[in-house]
């Protein structure tokens, strides 16, 4: 076997499904989805949401699974090689740079958010996040009261608690100043981050089967159990304060699910629903295509793709849709004006790290349920982050013949640089936000459009249908192939144009005025240039070995 050709394979059918579902299920299922629904027509949001799932999400998943396995059977596990086998054009492999940049850069900041979840879980164990425990939050709430008194105003207990939890989050992530993490008193937080970072690399070092698959087989059921425990607690909250009967769990569910039919006539609702499906299923991240490349010829991709998508929907609709907003409504959102409520709901960070701790602080057994919730989010995040490392490891291995430990060490160095960058430039989370917008949002659209065109027009729907049905246990209806060729690219382009129209002017202004945003963009472009150079070198190597020849070598 030539050097750099991977021998890794998934151990079982359910293992790969859980790994792909684990990659898709993340914080967005629990924090972003409920916020998007509540802001865009409540229950009415579900109609465009399910249409987008059927027209955009599941077909694109099937396309990615099919192309990944197609490339894997021809000896490639990384996007540059897989693209080159599908589209026999010298430039095709360079598009793979986006599929490597995306998971790599997203990992750089996602591991930080993951560590926040673990850090919050630890703070629940120590009681620091509980009101009345004499911990950090109590001190911050007293400070909020004292600051208000200095200005001759007074705060209600709820307002002071909101300010206290907001300040706790700001201090925790260093949103008040750059370089906060380098201060000596933040050593425990740095240890949590280092442990999270190292844990990801231990999993990835152990490989696809013994690392990722083994962990997801345990983590996905554990995550479901933890989320169901919290769900039962939320649904049995009833009306905690009999003096405020409007603050009940039923009204909390109503805030999330009552449909506003007028929203269906608003294009923003359709754009938000499509975007949510798109990001939630992790299509266009460069991860599914890599995971599917480790499948064998006889393995199924159609049922597996549908199952992993449906598992993601279970976590999003059945758990995220029933837990987050009803709980937040009873203790926080229901007491606020509609404007203030919208301000919290539209930011996943505000909802997850400021409002929900306030909820747990007021809930019976909140310390335990707060710990379970944030530990569950940590598991959800780690099953996603570990999937972000594998595509780049695969490229280092097959592009340069590196052994796994060398590839993991090189990737660890690069990703630590990026995480260090985001960690240092923490003021107002501008570096994280810039990475998230340009890579974690903008480039995902670009890659998904490229992959849709690659499947529909380069691989071709006839070859694609044949490749998808090799070993398949269910069949994809024929019209889905035509949708993938004609409807999905047009749909994606329409969403992308609307997205750019809405967001780019503000983002360009931010780059013009903010030096950290500029530095973040330069960092992203430097990593992209580095990856393009590596792909160029790897491409020459593959060509010299004859691996890119028509009908090239098969494993």
């Amino acid at each position, binding site marked *: 076997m030539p050097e750099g050709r991977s021998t890794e394979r998934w*151990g*079982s*059918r*359910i293992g790969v*499904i859980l790994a792909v579902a684990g990659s898709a299920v993340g914080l967005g299922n629990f924090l972003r989805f409920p916020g998007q629904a509540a802001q865009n027509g*409540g*229950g*009415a949001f*579900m109609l465009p949401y*399910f249409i987008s799932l059927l027209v955009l999400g599941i077909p694109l998943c099937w396309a990615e699974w099919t192309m990944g396995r197609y490339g894997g059977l021809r000896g490639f596990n990384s996007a540059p090689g897989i693209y080159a086998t599908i589209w026999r054009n010298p430039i095709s492999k360079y598009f793979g740079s986006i599929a490597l940049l995306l998971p790599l850069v997203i990992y750089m900041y996602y591991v930080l958010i993951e560590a926040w979840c673990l850090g919050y879980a630890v703070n629940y164990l120590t009681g620091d996040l509980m009101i009345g425990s004499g911990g950090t939050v109590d001190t911050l709430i007293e400070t909020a009261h004292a600051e208000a008194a200095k200005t001759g105003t007074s705060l209600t207990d709820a307002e002071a608690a909101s300010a206290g939890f907001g300040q706790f989050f700001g201090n925790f992530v260093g949103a008040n100043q750059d370089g906060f993490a380098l201060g000596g008193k933040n050593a425990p937080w740095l240890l949590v981050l280092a442990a999270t970072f190292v844990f990801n690399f231990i999993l990835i070092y152990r490989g696809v089967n013994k690392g990722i698959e083994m962990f997801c087989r345990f983590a996905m059921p554990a995550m479901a159990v933890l989320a169901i425990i919290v769900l039962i607690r939320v649904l049995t909250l009833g009306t905690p304060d009999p003096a405020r009967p409007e603050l009940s769990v*039923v*009204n909390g*569910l*109503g805030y*999330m*699910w*009552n*449909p506003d039919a007028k929203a269906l006539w608003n294009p923003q609702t359709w754009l938000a629903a499509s975007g949510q499906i798109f990001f939630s299923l992790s299509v266009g991240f460069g991860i599914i295509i890599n995971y599917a490349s480790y499948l*064998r010829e*006889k*393995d*199924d991709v159609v*049922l*597996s793709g*549908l*199952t992993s998508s*449906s*598992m993601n*929907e*279970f976590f999003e*609709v*059945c758990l995220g*849709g*029933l837990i987050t907003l009803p709980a937040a409504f009873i203790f926080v959102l229901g007491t606020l004006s509609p404007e203030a409520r919208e301000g919290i709901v539209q930011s996943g960070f505000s909802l997850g790290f400021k409002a929900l701790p306030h909820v747990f602080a007021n809930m019976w057994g909140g310390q335990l349920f707060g710990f379970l919730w944030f530990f569950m989010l940590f598991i959800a995040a780690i099953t996603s982050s570990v999937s972000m490392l594998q595509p780049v490891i695969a490229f280092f291995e097959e592009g340069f013949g590196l052994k796994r430990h060398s590839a993991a060490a090189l990737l660890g160095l690069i990703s630590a640089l990026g995480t260090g960058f985001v960690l240092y430039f923490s003021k107002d989370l501008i570096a994280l936000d810039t990475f998230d917008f340009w890579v974690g949002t903008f480039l995902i659209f670009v890659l998904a459009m490229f992959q849709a065109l690659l499947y529909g027009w380069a691989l071709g729907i006839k070859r694609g249908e044949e490749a998808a049905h090799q070993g398949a*246990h*269910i069949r994809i209806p024929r019209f889905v192939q035509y949708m993938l060729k004609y409807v999905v690219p047009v749909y994606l382009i329409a969403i992308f144009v609307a997205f750019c129209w809405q967001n780019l002017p503000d983002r360009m202004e931010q780059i013009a005025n903010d030096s950290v945003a500029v530095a973040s963009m330069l960092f992203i472009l430097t990593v992209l240039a580095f990856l393009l150079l590596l792909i160029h070198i790897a491409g020459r190597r593959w060509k010299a070995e004859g691996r890119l020849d028509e009908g090239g070598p098969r494993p």
Partner: protein
Amino acid sequence: MNPAGWAVMIVSVSSVLALVTYCVVKVLSLPPVEMEDLHGPLDIDTRDTKDAD
């Protein structure tokens, strides 16, 4: 929560539950992949047969 809200919630949650149940039951009822890949004795390379003759 109004009746329309209840209806949307029940239809959405039950649709997703039905889909995930169908998929998981179907996947788990298939024969394990490992069974298809069991190697017979002649397939196993013991690495000591190169100079057997």
